[in-house]
């Protein structure tokens, strides 16, 4: 690959950069351990010293020397636990940093492999230093490390592909795992019975238990590997969904066999109870999760005044769902997923945008840290041992894992394809089979076994670790080239398109209608019923205020516009400003119809106001730089920045503002629908303009202020002899097609002439974009503002001009 060649010379430097990271972290650990050892001694000393002091207090008066006041003491024990935890997390994060510093490494080796390797190294180091490294404590794993990962996965689960494929996923998860467990268990038992392997001590139930532990596909490993290969959505959701839903099966099997391995025999009654237990575990888990999800949604309805703790509710309710499920030995993973899925649409409708971002980033952060720690600890635990290596058992386990997985997938696909519309091809089957990675859950479950009942526990652990290593290293590393080799469809970068959304909804309605005509109660029928129920009853209870009536399409549209506006505020690009401004203007249009009093109006308009302000501010701040670059391209002569023209412009602007602010204070008429106002540009000196940004700015401002003007006004800045843009902003209550076409013409003319004047090729697509964007824009703005809001708005819009931004910007813009 070419990457290596070009970074060849940089590689040593990268390694050099990475080396210190390792050294630092190892030193950290070393110091921790040594401090630990030394403070044990020091503490003793201190303690005895203190005792001695206490003892010597009555003697002080008799003239014994008193200890000098200790200026600096070392008291490590006080902070030992949090300190060590922090060091581990820091180590994990530094490692993660380090991997991405080396460019080649992260594209070949998946992160999970690297992390396990690091864990091995660290464990080895600690062992060399003579201490016992910490083992992956099961309680720590299940209560602290696993939930963030699952919550992250569940909250951001793509619902549509999941529900479309839920049948397939369930078949793979339940039937597939059962098949794996029993096949492996029984064949292993058969292997154990072979003479000469000295495995006679392993009875059937122990084998079955081992089979059930090893057979479960691990969500953490799958996530870690599949995240990086960007495979198409269907396969991703199949493997990932399977790894999540097979938790119920694993839990039941585990407890069943653990229970009966002591007794030694399983009766049919027990089997029946086992099946019953499975249903209880699965549905119980989902029920608990859904309940907590609804509670969380309901709570988020009232958080409009305490936005800061909104994310906390989401996290706490989810965690409690997990813990509550674990109390009853229900499936905690399914509970967590159900909670995330249920609460998400309602919570997102209620919480602020910032809270949403917070939730997203916290979840990603925690799950990332958890994942890293899990893999590192896995590596460390491997070093700890004790290992009982039995060639037969380990090799048999490994082979059986692969064989049973392949057989299971092929067999199940034959059955599933009869019921699917989009059949699973051979390639799909291969990826599903190959993606069945095992991970830390298997290890923890095995670790949980008690040594008394299972004397072969360590042999099990060794075998499981081998399987985990094999799947993560070999399968994890080779799956990416295989995906490329087999030309498996990758994830398409979908840009959210409102076309798609509208047409998809339309097709949903169409299919529901056709199903009704056919009298067929199919997929669409029930989905439609669920949506109606949701809209009619549930949303009213769980979503605050007016947003409960907002149709899905509108909220989608809001999100699109918001995204575009934010993107623009960040990029601050020049020519696409027209479209953005247009769309932000239309964003202001989008206000839900108020049948009752405008109780919630100030809230939303303030929000929009914020957006406008942000964009204006961001764009104004960038105008200066942009202006210079723009100047170089478009100016024929130089020196357009002479002070005289600037001063004139500023004066004109002041006059404009004064007039505008006067009109802005006029209260808006809301009784009848306001006439549509149109903005028209006459850009006589457009080509030579040094301040294109200014032009757009005025266009934007004037558009947004239009509804407040009760009569037609024409603002015209005096055309100046020098090449200063003449901005004429006209209001015309004209019919749509004419003005739009005029606007279109004008912009196109401007665009064309702009294209001809400068040879800078990169600007022409922008101007083309401009004209496209301009033509369909029909700004009609409705602001229903109270008085103070109008004042604020007027102050918001008055700007001093692009040149004196730095000083005047701050004071004129409200915070």
């Amino acid at each position, binding site marked *: 690959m070419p990457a290596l060649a070009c970074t060849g010379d940089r590689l040593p430097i990268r390694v050099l950069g990475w080396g210190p990271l390792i050294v630092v972290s190892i030193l950290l650990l070393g110091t921790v351990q040594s401090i630990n050892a030394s403070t044990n001694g020091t503490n003793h000393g201190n303690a005895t010293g203190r005792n001695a002091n206490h003892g010597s207090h009555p003697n002080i008066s008799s003239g014994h020397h008193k200890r000098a006041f200790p200026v600096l003491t070392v008291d490590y024990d006080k902070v030992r636990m949090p300190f060590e935890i922090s060091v581990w997390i820091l180590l994990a994060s530094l490692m993660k940093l380090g991997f991405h510093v080396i460019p080649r490494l992260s594209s070949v080796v998946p992160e999970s492999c690297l992390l396990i390797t690091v864990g091995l190294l660290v464990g080895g180091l600690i062992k060399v230093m003579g201490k016992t490294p910490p083992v992956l404590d099961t309680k720590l794993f299940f209560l602290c490390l696993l939930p963030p990962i699952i919550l992250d996965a569940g909250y951001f689960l793509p619902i549509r592909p999941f529900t479309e494929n839920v049948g397939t996923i369930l078949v793979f998860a339940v039937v597939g795992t059962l098949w794996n467990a029993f096949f492996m268990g029984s064949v292993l038992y058969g292997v154990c019975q072979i003479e000469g392997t000295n495995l006679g001590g392993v009875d059937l139930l122990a084998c079955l238990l081992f089979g059930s532990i090893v057979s479960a596909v691990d969500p953490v490993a799958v996530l870690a590997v599949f995240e990086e290969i960007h495979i198409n959505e269907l396969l991703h959701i199949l493997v990932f969904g399977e790894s999540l839903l097979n938790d119920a099966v694993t839990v039941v099997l585990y407890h069943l066999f653990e229970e009966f391995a002591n007794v030694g025999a399983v009766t049919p009654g027990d089997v029946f109870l086992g099946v019953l237990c499975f249903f209880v575990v699965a549905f119980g888990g989902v029920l608990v999760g859904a309940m907590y999800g609804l509670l969380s949604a309901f709570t988020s309805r009232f958080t409009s005044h305490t936005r800061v703790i909104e994310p906390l509710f989401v996290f706490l309710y989810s965690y409690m769902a997990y813990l509550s499920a674990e109390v009853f030995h229900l499936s905690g993973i399914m509970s967590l997923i159900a909670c995330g899925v249920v609460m998400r649409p309602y919570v997102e409708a209620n919480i602020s945008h910032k809270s949403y971002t917070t939730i997203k980033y916290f979840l990603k952060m925690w799950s990332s840290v958890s994942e890293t720690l899990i893999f590192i600890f896995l590596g460390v635990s491997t070093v700890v041992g004790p290992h009982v290596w039995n060639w037969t058992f380990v090799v048999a386990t490994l082979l059986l894992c692969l064989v049973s997985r392949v057989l299971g997938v092929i067999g199940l696909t034959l059955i599933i394809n009869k019921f699917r519309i989009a059949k699973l091809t051979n390639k799909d089957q291969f990826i599903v089979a190959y993606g069945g990675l095992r991970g830390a859950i298997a290890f923890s479950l095995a670790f949980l076994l008690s040594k008394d009942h299972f004397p072969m526990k360590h042999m099990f652990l060794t075998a499981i670790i081998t399987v985990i290593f094999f799947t993560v290293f070999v399968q994890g590393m080779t799956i990416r080239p295989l995906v490329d080799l087999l030309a498996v469809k990758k994830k398409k970068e979908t840009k959210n398109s409102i076309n798609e959304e509208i047409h998809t909804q*339309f097709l949903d309605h169409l299919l529901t209608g056709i199903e009704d005509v056919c009298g067929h109660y199919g997929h669409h029928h029930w989905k439609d019923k669920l949506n109606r129920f949701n809209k009619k009853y549930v949303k009213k209870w769980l979503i605050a205020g007016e947003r409960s009536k907002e149709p899905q399409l509108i909220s989608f549209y809001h999100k699109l516009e918001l995204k575009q506006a934010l993107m623009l505020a960040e990029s601050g690009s020049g020519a696409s400003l027209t479209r953005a401004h247009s769309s932000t203007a239309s964003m202001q249009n989008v206000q839900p119809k108020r049948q009752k009093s405008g109780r919630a109006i100030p809230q939303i308009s303030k929000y929009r106001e914020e957006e406008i302000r942000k964009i204006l501010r961001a764009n104004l701040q960038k105008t200066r730089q942009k202006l210079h670059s723009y100047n170089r391209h478009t100016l024929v002569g130089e020196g357009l920045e002479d002070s005289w023209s600037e001063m004139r412009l500023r004066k004109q602007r002041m006059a404009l503002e004064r007039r505008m602010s006067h009109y802005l204070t006029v209260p808006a008429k809301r009784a009848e629908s306001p006439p549509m106002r149109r903005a028209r540009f006459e850009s006589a000196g457009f080509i030579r303009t040094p301040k294109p940004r200014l032009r757009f700015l005025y266009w934007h401002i004037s558009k947004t202020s239009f509804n407040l003007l009760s009569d037609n006004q024409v603002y015209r800045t005096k055309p100046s002899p020098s090449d200063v843009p003449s901005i004429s902003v006209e209001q015309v209550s004209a019919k749509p097609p004419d003005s739009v076409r005029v606007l279109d013409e004008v912009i196109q003319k401007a665009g064309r002439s702009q294209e001809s004047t400068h040879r800078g090729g990169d600007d022409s697509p922008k101007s083309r974009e401009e004209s496209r964007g301009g033509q369909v824009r029909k700004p009609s703005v409705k602001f229903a503002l109270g008085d103070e809001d109008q004042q604020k708005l007027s102050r918001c819009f008055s700007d001093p001009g692009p040149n004196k931004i730095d000083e005047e910007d701050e004071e004129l813009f409200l915070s």
Partner: protein
Amino acid sequence: MGSTASTLSKIPDVETLMQETGFTPAHMVRLYDRFKALDKERKGHLCPQDFGAIKELAENPIGDRIVGAFFSQGQETLDFHSFVRILAHFRPVDKDRPRDPNVPEPINSRSNKLKFAFQLYDQDKDGKISRAELLQVLRAMLEMQVTEEQLESIADRTIQEADLDRDEAISFDEFRKSLEKVNIDHKMSIRFLR
């Protein structure tokens, strides 16, 4: 099986119909039973009122358009053949169909499905979805919960996104292009019509 054969014999011209639409005998029987069930007055054909009697269809925002699609060309009666032909659009796509340029595409091919959907948008049959038509659809789907301005801005943005040849309307090709990422074969198929 016996009842299937007997019902099958009641349907006129059933062989050509099965050939044309690709339905199996079991499907034909089921659809015939449904046809009979909808035709409450035993007229032998369906009229728009029969469709109106389907409760869920009345609640569907585009229910009237769907009924209109069945009664295309302004006719007032719908016989079984046309009924089946329309429903054939929603049969799942046959994956291993040989791409023979001489044979016309089957009714349930991807592009024919899309054409059917397109016709539901394009009421005046001029081959384009104009802004007004789009507004009508949006109004129907959003069911009076939004203001005119909102609708208009959404319609504008939709056309702006999809319209490549700048004629302010969405032609069939542009419609198809905007849906290229959607799995139409899956989305526009009804499972029992396999």
